[in-house]
Each structure stands twice: as C-alpha cells, then as structure tokens.
C-alpha cells in the first residue's frame, strides 16, 4: 500500500476511534468522583488482613492470581529472549576489548552501585508496608548491577553475573510463587489463599500472612529476569558478531 493510502486509512480509522472515545469520555463519571465500590472493598479487606500497603494486598493477596499471570509473562519473555537472541550457526563470539573508563565515571558508578543495590533490596523488603515492592525493587537491584558495565568494563560485569545462575533463579522464584499458592490449596481453602500463615502485627515486616513471601518471590523473579534480559541484549551488542558467510 502506498504511504498516502495508509495515511488515509489511519485518518479515517483514527477519526472514528477518536470520536468514539470522546463520546465515551463525556459519559464517564467526572474525574475525581467518589464511586469506587471495588476499591473500598479492597481497602477494607487489606486492613482485615493487616497489610498496610493496600496495593500490595491487592497484588499479592486479593488478586494474587493476576500477579501469577504477570510474573509468568515476564518469565515467558525471558525464555523467549534467550531463544530469540541465541547465537546462531553463522555467528561467532568476539572478545570485547577492555575499555578505558574516565575516573570520575568509575568513581561515581562504583559509589552509586552499592547504594542502588541496597535501595532495591530495601524497596523489595518493605513492599507490604510502604510504596514499592517486588517489581520496583527488583528492577532497581538488577539495573544497579549494570553500573559495573559503566564503571569498570564488560568483563567485570560478566564475572559478577553468571547468566545461567540468574536464569535458574528466575525459574526457581516462579516455582516458589506457584508452590506458595499450592500450599494455600493444600493447607487452607483455595489456590493462593492467604490463610496458611498468621497475619502478624499491623505495620511490621512480617505482617500480612503470605504477602511478604509472594512479594519476595516476585522481587527475586523480577531481578533475575531483568538481569537475564539485559545480559542477552548486551551480549548481542557487545559480543556476538556475524560471520562473513551469510
């Protein structure tokens, strides 16, 4: 199709969708309204289960089944990237030359690295109490490891990052989530039921029953997954070279 024809299609389709959406927006309840039945029930349920961060309660208790799907999507994407970015028969691995890093950059990144890593772990650990949790902390922790690439060089990064180990960690964390869910089925009433552990004292690290466990599993999964994802992309950019016979 010519670019012009496509533009016409986009104009027609976009205009229709825009009109539809604007009409719908005019029928929506006004922004900032007070009608949130599900939200109010969720807050109530979180408080009865002594989870201070209601979002953590929704994610890891009330709608933990959604989170199972979500972490599986991440898990699937990691396997997918490992497969899609594998070294094929016509490619070979080149050794990246060590690169010189400017001293301020090196000092800065080596200073920030432990801070960022600790922040990530802290954010994971306090998931059920304060904003944050497995997802956010996991991403921060995994990304911080890659400051090594900036501060030292690729080889230093490779030493602290045996990718195979992280792949296994990713899989183990995913199974841990499922197994916790199964424990709910066997020991309690239903799959992913938060009835196995005591709910603890409100606003402490061990409150919320299985919420901290699931949160930790997700944190580990996300951290491992992001490390593997970045590793695969770095591998493609830095190491893998195509052979001449294409």
């Amino acid at each position, binding site marked *: *199709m010519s670019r012009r024809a*496509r533009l016409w*299609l*986009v104009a*027609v*389709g976009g205009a*229709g*969708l825009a009109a*539809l*959406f604007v*009409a*719908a927006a005019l*029928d*929506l*309840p006004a922004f900032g309204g007070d009608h*949130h*039945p*599900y*939200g109010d*029930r*969720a807050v109530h*349920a979180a408080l009865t289960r002594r989870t201070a961060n209601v979002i953590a309660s*929704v994610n890891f*208790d*009330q*709608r933990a*089944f959604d989170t*199972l*799907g979500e972490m*599986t*999507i991440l*898990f*699937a994407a990691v*396997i*997918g*990237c*490992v*497969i*899609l970015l594998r070294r*094929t028969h016509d490619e070979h691995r080149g050794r990246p030359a060590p690169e010189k890093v400017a001293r301020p950059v090196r000092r800065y990144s080596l200073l920030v690295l432990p801070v960022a890593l600790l922040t990530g772990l802290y954010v994971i650990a306090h998931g059920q109490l304060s904003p944050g949790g497995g997802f956010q902390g996991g991403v921060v922790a995994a990304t911080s490891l890659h400051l090594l690439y900036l501060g030292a060089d690729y080889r230093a990064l490779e030493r602290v990052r045996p990718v195979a180990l992280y*792949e*296994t960690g*990713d*899989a*183990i964390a*995913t*199974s841990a989530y*499922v*197994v916790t*869910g*199964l424990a*709910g*089925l066997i020991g309690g*009433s*239903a*799959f*992913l*039921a*938060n*009835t196995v552990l005591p709910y603890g004292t409100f606003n402490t690290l061990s409150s919320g029953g299985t919420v901290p466990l699931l949160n930790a599993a997700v944190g580990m999964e996300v951290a491992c997954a992001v490390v593997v994802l970045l590793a695969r992309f770095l591998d493609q950019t830095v190491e893998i070279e195509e052979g001449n016979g294409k």
Partner: protein
Amino acid sequence: MDASLPLLVAVPLLGAALLVAGGRLVPRPVAETVGCAVSAGTAALALVLLLNSSPPFLEWSGGWTPVQGQSVGIVLIGDGPGLGMAALASLLTLASLAYSWHYFDEPPSGHAGSFPALLLLFQGGMCGFAIAGDLFNAFVWFELMSVVAYALTGHRVEEARAVQGALTFAVVTSLGAYALLMGIGLLYARTGELGMHAIGRGLDAHGCPDALVLAAFVLVMTALLVKSAAVPFHFWLPDAHAVAPTPVCMLLSGVMVELGTFGVWRVYGTVFSGPGGVPAPEFERALVTLGALTAVIGAVMCWYQRHIKRLLAYSTVAHTGLFLIGIGVLKPEADDGIALYVLGHAGVKAALFACTGILLDRYGSVDEHALHGRARELKGVAVLFVLGALGLAGLPPFGTALGKSVTEEAVGGPLTVLYVAASAVTAAAVLRVAARVFGGLGPRPETGSGYETTGSGERPETRHRLSRIPDTMTAVPAVLLAGAVAVGVAPGFAKVVARAVNETGSAGVFTSVHWTPAGVLLGLVSTLLAGVLALLAVARPKAFAAPDRALWLRRLQSGHVGDYVAWVLVGTTVLGALTLPGMLGG
C-alpha cells in the same frame, strides 16, 4: 473438586518453571518426557473437571468467596464451554509436544527444556483465558498466550520470514491487548467492578446503553477479534501461521484463534447481553457482517495460495468467519453447532498442519508448485492429508460436518450458502494441493502474478532433512483425525456438548443436536463441490489461476506492519459504525 480449577493454570506453569530450572542438567529426552507428562496431567484434570461441570460452578481464587454478593477476589468460571476449550487446548498441546518429540530442531545449548517449557506456558495461558471470569484476569492470560506465541513464532531466528511474521503478529496483537485494557478502564469507570458478571450487572443497573458502553464494547471486541482474526483485523494471521514452526501452527490455528472467538462469546454473554449492554440486533449485525466478510476473503485468498502453510492459515481465517457468524446469530442451536465445529476443526486443521510439516522436513519446501508430484512415495501421509481436506469440507461423519450442519440449520437462508461455499472452496484448495503434490496430477502450474509468497527455500525444522518419516509424526495427525471423526460419531457426545453449552449460554433453553438428512446432504454437497473444483483446478491451471482482478485483494496483504495497524484502526471504526444505529435511541 471445584477448588482445583486454578490448577489448570498452575500445573503447566510449575512444570515450565521446573523445566527451565532443570533444563541444563537433564538431557533432551527427559525434558520432553516431563513436558508431555505435565501437559497430559493437565489435560486429564481438565477432562475430569469437565465431567463435573454440570451444573456450572464458580471458583474464587484465593478463597475470597463473596460476602453479601460481593468479592474482592478473581472469579473463575468452571462451565462446559470454558473447560471444554481448556481441555481442547491441553490435548492439542500434548499432540504438538508428541509431534515435535525428539526430531524438532536442536535447542540452544544448555536449554534443553526451553521449547517444551514454552509450550507448557502456552497451555497455561490458554487454560487461564478459557476459565477466566474476570475481565482483567482474562487480559493477563490473553497477554501470556500472546507473548509465548510471539516467541514461538519467531523460534527459528535464522529464517527471515519467521522473524518478520512474528514481529507483525506481536505488534498487532499487542495493540489489540492495549485496546482491551482501554475498554476495561471504561467499564471499570462506569461500574467499579472487574468480574464479568459483576460488570454486566453494573451496566444493567445504570440503565440504557450509551456511548460509553459502545466504546467499551468496540475496544474490548477489537482485542478479541484481532485474536480470532476477523477481517480487517486478520492480516497478521497468514504471516504468522505460515512461518511458525509446525507444532506451533497446530496450536495457533487449532485452538488459539478459536479462543478469540470463544472470548467474544463469553464476554458478550456475561458483560454486554443485558439491557444495559449492546442490544442483540446490533451485536448480530456487527458479527454476521464481519463474519461473512471474513469467510469470503479467507476462502478467496486461501484458493490463491501456493505456500501450503499459508493456504491452511487462510482456511483458518475463512472458518473463523463461519464461527463468528454462528456466534453472532445468538441462537442456542447455532452455539451448539459452533462448539462441535470448533472441536472438529481443531483436529482436522492440526492434522493438516502436521502433514505439511512432514513435507517440509522431508523435501525442504512447502510450495505447491515446486513439490508437484514429488511426494508420490508418501502414501500414508497422502491418505491423511486427503482425509483432512474432506474433513475441512464437512464430509459426514466428521465432527466438522455435524457442527456445520447444525449451525447451517440454525442460521438458515443465504448464510447457509456461505457455509457451504466457504468450506467447499477452502477444502478444494487443500484437495488441489493433495492432487498435485501427492498425486502429481495435471500439468505443472506456471508461476503466478509475482505478488505472492512462495513456499520454496524453507528450511526443514528437523536437524537433518528426514529420509524416513518417524512414526510419531504420522501417528499424531492420524489420532487427531480420528478425534475429529469421533466428535461426529461418538454416540451421545453431541448431546453432552449441546447440554454443556446451553447450560451457560441460553438461560435454560435446551436444544437437541443430531444428524439430519438435510445436514448430511449439505455436507455431501460441499464435499462434492470441493472435489469438482479441485479437479478442475488441477486439470486447467490457467483458467483457475489468480486473475488480475484479484490482485488488489492480494496487495492488501502487504506484510507491512504499518498497514496492518491502520487496518486495525479502520476495523474499530467499522465495528463502531455497525453497532451504533440501535444504540442512539437510548
């Protein structure tokens, strides 16, 4: 018993995680055995639950059973249609795992378990989508099955076509998924609920449908119609199904596309069918129009293909059109017919893909013209392929024939003609392939218009080109075809299916489903038509080659991702325009 419903998802996911964790320690046969065992176990669970699903039950994940009719948990629906789709998805996953057994491409080093693991994740996603009773949860499983499907489609990264098809598939489906999310946002704003039944009740409580309901309907349906490849959302399908590895094609065409259709049925029935939703005539108009268009375009394009997998992919498009019509007319008999049709079609289509995979692995090509007469030696495969084509045409006693005849009687009128024509043309195309490739009949056809995808230059999916066809690769299509026949002849099976569908679908109206003389006759007519068309095409290739008039239709299928996105936008507008008229009055 009911509490084990979420296990349909949990078991394959756990299996996949263990396969990845242990994948580098165990040899390939062990990984494949584990994959088959987990998949079979899930299938068994789905069947057991299916047998216990009358009356239908609800399961609240996390044990959040409703208090005063309201819950904060996620509801799962354990009814006949949902569990039936889960069982179908599980059985087909098992079939494709068995088909790829031992022979499929060498996995990347250290990842022996990755391919079976991905298939298990796919199975988990499909089961989750089939039993979802919560709209956001359905989105999550929709995404899982999509993400896995992208990775599986692009699995053979050395193939230029595979990666392009996978990207197109991924972009279009992801866009559809985000449209679904926008729709969920609108529905949540109106009703403040996420469970499908709860949303439906909320819409009814609000009163007459308005623009918001229309927009939400269009956005949600966009995602499901992209998945089920209705025109004009269908462009990704031929590109993806033609390039995916054969075991994956079996799943994509056999059940994933049908899950999109199932989603349309489920979401309309639970969310939009009440007085506050989309009125029945509007829904019927939209679905029957799009379905008829899909059936016609799918059948025509199917006829003009020479890349065999692409041809089969278009026949899936044509059949989805027929499914959408059946769902669109909103009659209990049509629902029953479609349920049987989907079951039969899954077996037939997966078997046809499996046979095509054998051609690919044996001859390194899936081009109808290049393979002319080359597969004469594969007698057994030829029989299976022809049987598959006859099943596609709807020859009694295949399950497809029973399903089709029941639906035909329900829809009536000119739509019956469309059912006969679409199934006859797609089957004729497959029979034409069989006559040329396995029989060497007719003159060798000349190259066509040039604007087409040939099937030569494809690499086999096995490590080496096969010199002998392994027994597993022929046994799988044979069993699948036997299953498709069983759907039609197993005594009482059709009644059970109809009862299971009606229990959820038609509010207590029970219909009886059986072979009728008229149905058998129509099935024979379309088979005969298919045979005649195929013979004519083989004998007179020139007269039946794609005329220049049809070129514009082929040019629409440009392989350009921007075009496809533009069509999705147009599709939403068309869907909105088709649904609009009756909703203005409110």
